[in-house]
């Protein structure tokens, strides 16, 4: 190392420590949220690219800490990750839009986090609770365990949609079939579920065996020839869209519903329009750099002329215990199911779960459950919480 390089590194390190101290994080400190830096490239790469850098650096093992969720919560509260993303990143994302192909109305909704990192059956079995295999935010009101919270969430969705026996329900992004099985078993509805990949297909079919549930692999066409569904559900799919695709998606669901159709859309939301999604999550986990967590204004705009919103329910804070419980299962599985798992892959999952947990605890992200009516419910839709 030349003397010049040493000066540059020293400057970067000083600046990095200053940024971190704004969030109350000390390098080499001994509080759970303090971090240890193993590789000085962290200061150059890790802190300059928002969470894109932080996540990649974590996966590479350039830095570590005892309580990643607390570190990320502090960074979210201090808005550290918002900073570098501003002007030049926004420009980059606009340029990218020119070369990106539209995702297609249905693909975006079902494209889960499995895109890049081969998250498959192992991950679902290790992380999700075996009782429901729910892969979206739980509802922790009156729940004190993960499976209870997931069951409560499914029940909440069913109550909001007022499911009646015999109704036909379209589920976009049916994951491991948790909701489809719940709705078919407890409410006597017939579910047509679209999943993202063959791992989900297998798990969902296994879960829904013997029930009035049909699970198919998602494609561009959507449920072709199948229309006039009574209800549509999308749990955690709304955040996987580039802005223009969100409208196309809502439009496609509108077309698949009958006249009195209700659509429950659950999505992670951001507090500002045009904010994009967390860059690390978009780039490395979902593999859709254009995706964004929509703001209420963007969602509101996307449904205009198609649906009337009967209700907007925000329970983003409930993602904190949900992600915490998933991570606890992930850690427990490390010596079991995931024993042979690649270290980098493990750290990716860890950063995904704990990084998001910190952001939700800081309330930097929202979780919206929106009830949309094709034709407003006559006599009114009654508040369900």
């Amino acid at each position, binding site marked *: 190392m030349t003397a010049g390089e040493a000066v540059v590194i020293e400057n970067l390190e000083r600046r990095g420590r200053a940024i971190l101290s704004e969030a109350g994080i000390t390098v080499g400190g001994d509080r759970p949220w303090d971090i240890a830096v193993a590789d000085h490239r962290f200061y150059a790469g890790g802190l300059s690219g928002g969470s894109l850098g932080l996540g990649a650096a974590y996966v590479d093992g350039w830095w570590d800490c005892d309580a990643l969720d607390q570190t990320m919560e502090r960074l979210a509260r201090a808005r550290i990750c918002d900073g570098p993303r501003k002007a030049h990143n926004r420009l980059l994302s606009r340029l990218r839009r020119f070369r990106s192909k539209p995702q297609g109305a249905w693909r975006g909704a079902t494209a889960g986090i499995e895109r890049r990192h081969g998250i498959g059956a192992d991950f679902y079995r290790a992380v999700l609770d075996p009782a429901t295999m729910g892969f979206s935010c739980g509802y922790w009101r009156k729940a004190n365990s993960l499976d209870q919270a997931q069951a409560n969430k499914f029940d909440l969705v069913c109550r909001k949609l007022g499911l009646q026996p015999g109704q036909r329900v379209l589920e976009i992004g049916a994951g491991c079939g948790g909701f489809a099985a719940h709705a078919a078993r407890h409410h006597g509805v017939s579910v047509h579920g679209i999943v993202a990949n063959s791992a989900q297909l297998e798990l969902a079919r296994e879960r829904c065996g013997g029930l009035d549930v049909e699970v198919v692999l998602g494609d561009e066409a959507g449920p072709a020839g199948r229309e006039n569904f009574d209800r549509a559900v999308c749990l955690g799919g709304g955040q996987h869209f580039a802005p223009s695709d969100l409208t196309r998606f809502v439009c496609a669901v509108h077309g698949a519903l009958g006249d009195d159709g209700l659509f429950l859309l659950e999505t992670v939301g951001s507090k500002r329009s045009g904010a994009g999604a967390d860059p690390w999550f978009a780039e490395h986990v979902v593999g859709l750099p254009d995706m964004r967590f929509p703001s209420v204004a963007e969602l509101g705009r996307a449904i205009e002329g198609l649906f009337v919103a009967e209700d*907007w329910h925000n329970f983003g*804070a409930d993602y904190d215990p949900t992600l915490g419980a998933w991570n606890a299962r992930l850690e427990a599985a490390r010596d079991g199911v995931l024993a042979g798992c690649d270290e980098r892959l493990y750290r990716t999952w860890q950063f995904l779960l704990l990084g998001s947990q910190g952001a939700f605890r800081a309330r930097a992200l929202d979780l919206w459950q929106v009830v949309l009516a094709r034709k407003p419910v006559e006599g009114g839709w*009654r508040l369900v919480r």
Partner: protein
Amino acid sequence: MADFYEKLVTDLFALGDVRINGDRPWDAQVHDRRFFRKALSLGTMGLGEAYVDGWWDCPALEEFGVRILNADVRHKVPITPRLVLGALPQLLPNLHYFVPGLREAAARLGFLGDAVERHYNIGNDFYQVLLDKRMTYTCGYWPEAETLDEAGEAKLEMVCCKLGLKPGHRVLDIGCGWASFARYAVEHYGVTVTGITISEEQRRLGTELAAGLPIEIRLQDYRDVTDKGAFDRAVSLGMFEHVGRRNYPAYMRMVHDALTPDGLFVLETIGENVSGTHCNPWFSKYVFNSPASVFPSTAEVSRSVEGLFAIEDWQNFSYDYAPTIEHWWANVEAERDWVLETYGERFYRLWEFCFKSCISSFRGRYSQMWQIVLAKQPVEGGFHPDYWDVEPDDGR
């Protein structure tokens, strides 16, 4: 000439299964043939003016309205040269009500002279007849209410719960009306309230009704509120409709600045299904006469709070406005003789048409009624007001 208009109106009404001089309650009873041309020339404004003039009647006016709205009649009028030429004499003098933005521009340039909202000054004694005992001039909450008084109080209670009021809280009430929320909150939650209104009539009667309570009612425009960080909570029930799109940022900034860092704000407003609408011409000519008055869309409200407030909850209970207004008008009908004697027949028919057309719009779900909870800082651990622990009756 008359035949042309009459035939057209008959055909258009038939789309919603409404007949001219039919015998069902929602059929239109036309007494004066000028009705047809007026209705075609001015739409709702024509129907309303003709109703006030007594040119037509309809026993179930609100049902008539729902049918016309559901059939989307206004978009099915065949725009022919003959119709346009025939409409011009009536349309031209009212053009500023029909061209979006024209009245706002005219008001800014000073052409309209007196452009403040007069709606709330039409007569306190009329509002005392119209409204419930607390004089709540906003939507009631009906799931468990039997009477208008109960529905009004249930709504006020819901607002207090969402605000999480604690004794000693200082509350700003923007557009306080006759102090109905202020009195309820003070009586039940031990808070102090500062209410602002630009209606002298409201301030006078409101102050009288709130005598002896820790309530201050100011005759003040929201733009003139300069208190910084002086309030723990803020509430605005049915006033945002008069703010106008251009002023949303200033309005939100004022509320933001007036609140303490952990302040909560409950905003209640009528809403539209799409962005960029302008107020119904009839409504802006006779009811909400301020040129700024307009109903916002979800996107417009939420965009205006970005960077200032986190949106914690967004409840739509527009279906409750129909029974609320039905009860209001039933109150007036019960005092029909007094109203006719005091205010005259035209006044009575004007408000009859106004309230019944509003019932149509809410019953048909063309207008929404939103209660939005906004937090200056997102609530730690999430927003969970107490009343959510009361289980609503099974599903819908």
